């Protein structure tokens, strides 16, 4: 999905109620996508009176967003945000990036090499 319609959807959800901290607002967006995706509409802010952008949101895309939001909220409720967003790394203790990546590469249980099918 293009990010512009997604941004407009978030604005639509939070437009009437932007209370709470970042987590509260993010959860509210996901809950709206999960529960009210069918009724959400978006408009081009440059032409709000005549340019309904809801056609960007096909039924397939609405289903996908709704299912993704539902799965994400289920995971957050069961295992917390780190299960979705990844573990927070402490920068002060972080090893240099190349060293970490090399270490991860050599830890591969089975080595595979990229290829290209075309000459």
């Amino acid at each position, binding site marked *: 999905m293009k990010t512009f319609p997604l941004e407009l959807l978030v604005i639509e959800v939070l437009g009437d109620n932007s209370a709470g901290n970042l987590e509260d607002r993010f959860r509210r967006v996901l809950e709206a996508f999960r529960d009210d995706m069918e009724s959400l509409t978006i408009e081009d802010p440059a032409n709000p009176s005549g340019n309904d952008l809801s056609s960007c949101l096909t039924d397939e895309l609405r289903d996908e967003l709704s299912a993704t939001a539902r799965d994400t909220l289920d995971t957050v409720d069961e295992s917390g945000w780190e299960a979705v967003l990844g573990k927070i790394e402490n920068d002060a203790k972080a090893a240099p990036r190349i060293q970490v990546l090399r270490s991860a590469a050599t830890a591969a249980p089975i080595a595979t*090499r990229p290829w290209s099918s075309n000459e």
Partner: protein
Amino acid sequence: MTVPWFEREPEAYAEVRRMLIERYPTLHARKIGDAVVVKGTLGISHEGVEIDRYSLEFRLPGDYPKSLPTVSETAERIPRQMDRHVNPATGTLCLGVVEELWFVMNGDFSLDRVIEIPVRNFLIGNSLVEQGQEWPLGERSHGIRGILEFYACLLGAKEKKSLHRFLTSLLRGQVKGHWPCPCGSGSVLRRCHIGWHEAA
């Protein structure tokens, strides 16, 4: 008309979904027509810490898990260039010589194995290439040369000529024990790599 695998085996599809929710909660499976498409982001972790994250799309083949799924990077982070091992026309990642992947993965291209072996290796390698480094586990040459490199490596073959002869004959079922061994030892096949002869 062929029935898609996820309708033939709904439990297998349910297992893919369960596996994603448990192990990769930011990847999501959906049925689109006759295909199953898995989209989202994949975190790459090492020693319990996420070291990178990629936006990906997997398309599971009709005979899943026998054939390799196609994998694309969807955030336009990796250039669509052959030298970056991305097919310029389709945007799919060239994870490896398919025969080699089939060999090292014992013919099992289940999604979790594909994620943990060739996709993980590819993405860590790409992260290093972005830092100006070489591919850490090496890379195969483009096209048929890469395929031959794999067979030469597998068979320990030093001479191109004997490798070609062995592979061509293998396809025809005509390998003879008295031929020079493709490993280049100078001995005949049946007295050197007898296993290849018997496998043929």
